[in-house]
Structures are given as C-alpha cells and as structure tokens.
C-alpha cells in the first residue's frame, strides 16, 4: 500500500458485504460498492442512515468506538483493510480525514502541517519547508497565509482553519481523503473554496465525502451513494442519481418528499 504502488488507473476500492453494529444496533447493513480511485464519491442520506459510519470504516476509526463491530471486507490494493491483522496506524497514514468542525492543533500554521511528517521522522528544515509550502498551495491557502506561517492556527478564520486541516491531511501524502461534512460549519464563501479544492484534489487523491447538502454532492462528486436506514439504496454516477434516480426512495429524498 505504499505510494510507489500508485498507478494511473488503480483498481477500485471494493466494499464487500460490509455490516457495522453498535452493540445491538445494526448501523450498516450488507453494503457493497466499488469506489473509483482518483475521483470524488459522495455519500448522502438522512441523519442516522449510516453514511458517516461507513466513511469511518476506511480508516478504521470505528475501532475506537467501544461496542462497535464490523463485518465484511474493504479491499484496497489487494488487502482487506478491515482485517484485524491490518495495523490501523499505518493505514491512517494513507487515509487522511477532515472533520465537520475544523480542528487545528493549538500550534503555529507551520507546525500544524509539519506535525505529521515530523512524527514520520522528517526533521530536515528544508524538506519540512517545502512540504509545508506544497501542502498549503495544494489546499489553496498559501496565498492567504504564506507570509505568517509562525502565527497561531487558532487565529485563522473557520474556512482557513478547515483548509489548514486539509493541508495537514495532505502532508502525510495520503491516497484517500475522507471528508465528513467538511463545509457544514463554514460560510458560503469558505464553502465555495473548499469545493474548488475538492475538485482539484481528485486529480491526485481519492476523495470520499459525506454531506447533508445535496447540491454540494451534485457539484463536487463524480459518484453518489444514497443511504437509508443503514442500507445503500442507490449508487451511480452523480449526474444520473440527481437527474434520474432509479429508486423511488432516492427520488423521494431528492425531491424533499421525506427525510
């Protein structure tokens, strides 16, 4: 699963018959789907439908939840990442995550981004400088903060903080970026910037985004999965899902007739 194994047209990530339980609550029921790499996949659905739970399977964050049990397989580069033998720590180096509320460390902008590489043993100042620069540029933040890298990340605006978190995720060179409602705490201008960024990120990364905003899913994603009560109801190209959903449930949700 090293970055050197990245290919131009990598195999899709195969989700096979995944079930997730929180104690006796069956949160994800028999979900199978293929996530195309180097593209944006959106998970949509009403609250409690299991979309965030499935998202957390990709970096095994559910392991941290007491009483949570996962069955099935997620095959990525020929490895079942749900297998207990797979160490989640190196997995999480390959799978970055951005959360609903920006969560920068109470450190300088520079140190936020350098944090991951330093843990991985990169200490050379010049290398760190170039990583910080590159990640800030990739996260469309460099022009705004390039001249004040030593200032506290906590002084940035919400939108800037969120892009900093994306830059921080990029610093460990992940292959997959998970986004759990990344714009729900942001104003429309900051949201537009994040959406533009997601569009750029898909050239290099596989992005999976959970969003409550259907228009956002329609704008940024290539593929969309609609979830309801833990089941994947419909999955397909975003254009098809939003213009011509096959399932009545999807259509009713899209048109606000329930949910």
């Amino acid at each position, binding site marked *: 699963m090293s970055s050197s194994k990245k290919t131009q047209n990598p195999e899709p990530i195969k989700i096979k018959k995944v079930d997730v339980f929180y104690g006796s609550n069956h949160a994800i029921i028999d979900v199978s789907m293929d996530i195309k790499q180097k593209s944006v996949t959106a998970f949509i659905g009403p609250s409690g439908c299991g979309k965030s739970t499935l998202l957390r399977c990709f970096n095994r964050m559910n392991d941290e939840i007491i009483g949570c049990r996962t069955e099935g397989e997620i095959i990525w580069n020929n490895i079942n990442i749900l297998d207990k033998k797979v160490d989640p720590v190196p997995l999480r180096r390959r799978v970055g995550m951005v959360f609903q509320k920006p969560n920068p460390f109470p450190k300088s902008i520079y140190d936020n981004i350098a944090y991951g590489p330093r843990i991985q043993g990169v200490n050379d100042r010049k290398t760190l400088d170039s990583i910080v620069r590159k990640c800030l540029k990739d996260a469309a933040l460099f022009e705004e903060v390039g001249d004040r890298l030593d200032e506290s990340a906590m002084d940035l605006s919400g939108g800037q903080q969120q892009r900093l978190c994306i830059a921080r995720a990029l610093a460990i060179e992940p292959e997959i970026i998970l986004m759990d409602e990344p714009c729900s705490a942001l104003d429309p201008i900051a949201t537009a910037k994040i959406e533009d960024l997601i569009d750029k990120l898909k050239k290099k990364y596989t992005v999976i985004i959970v969003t409550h905003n259907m228009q956002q899913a*329609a704008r940024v994603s290539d593929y969309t999965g609609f979830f309801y009560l833990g089941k994947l109801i419909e999955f397909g190209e975003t254009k098809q899902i*939003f213009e*011509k959903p096959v399932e009545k449930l999807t259509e009713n949700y899209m048109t606000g007739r329930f949910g």
Partner: protein
Amino acid sequence: MVERFHEELKALKKDVIDMGYLSIAMLKKSVEALRKQDLDLAKWVDSQKTLIASKDSNIEAKAFQLLTLHQPMAKDLRLIACSLKMITYIARVGRYGKDIAKIAVELSDKPHIKKLVSIPHMADIVCSLISDALLAFEKETIEPIKEFSERDDDVDQLRYSIFRECLTYMMEDQKVIKQCAQYMMVSRYLERCADHACKMAEKIHYMVTGDHIEIDIKSIT
C-alpha cells in the same frame, strides 16, 4: 418550505397547461376565422398575442424563481426544465395562430376559391396533437404521445397535398395566386405547429422517464 415548493410547482404546471390551451384556442379560432372569413374572430386572436406573451414571461420568471430558491432535483427539476421548453413551443403556436388570423383578414375581401376543407382538417389534427401533449404533461404519462411520429406524418402529407392542390389552381388561373400562396403559407404554419407539438412530446418524455428521445419529424418540401 418543501410543501410550499410542491404547491408552487403544481401552480407552475397549471399555468403551462392554461397557456397551452390558450395557444390551441388561438390556432383553432384563427383557422375558423379564415374559413368563415370572420373578422371579429380574427381580431380576437390578434388581441390574445399580448396575453400569451405575458404568460410566457411570467411562467419563465416563476420557473427561475423556483430553481433559485429551491434548487430542485430529479423529477422536480425535470418538470421545471420541461416547462421552460414547453412555453417556448406553446408561444410559437400562439404566434402562428396570430399569423393565420392576419392572413384571414387579408383574404376576407373576396370569397375563397373553394370551400376550405383540408386546412381545417389539418388544424384539427394539429390541435389534437397539442392537447394530447398537454394531457401527457398534466398526467405525467407518455401514453397520449406514443404515436406522435405517425400523426405528424399525416400532417406532413396533408400539407403536401394542399401544396399540390394550390399549385394546380395557380397554374390554371393566375388570379388565384395571391389566395393560394396564402393557403400554402397557412398549411406551412400548421405543419410547424405539429412539429412544435412533437418537440413538446420529446420534452414530456424526458420529464416522465428521464430519457431523451427524438421524434422522427419528416418535413416534405
């Protein structure tokens, strides 16, 4: 808010249907005005042109407002998209009605060269095409528009036969050229209205099924 949106969507649909029936009335009455050489009827058709134009712009404004405020998706989006296209075709039908009414006035000074039969018959078929399109739009079903291609062929054939008939009259007697040229024009307008009905049917098919189709519109010239 969602409920209000769906109420507004229903109202939009009703407006489109009302506009559609106005265009049918304009077309029907214009041909009647021509047949009966009835100037009052022709004037009535002419007086409706501003009404149909204002319906066109009002519906368009309402549709844009719904798109902006509610950002609809799936079948709601398709209904609005279809409505926006429909009103353009309907407005064109209304305009052709007005043009035929104008010809009715021009041809009112002397009797027709013969009793008009083919043109009113053609108008009946065209109006039934438009009303079936409106029915399909209202009921959100493709049943009424299933045989539009064949029905449009009938209209084309009628237009061609009117063309040949007029040609014969004009060759026989030069004095009827002005009248015959106008009859040919009217049949051309009616044939275009049938094409517009077919375009409406294509959009309705998309609205109902989500699939684009093309109705084979053959124009014989």
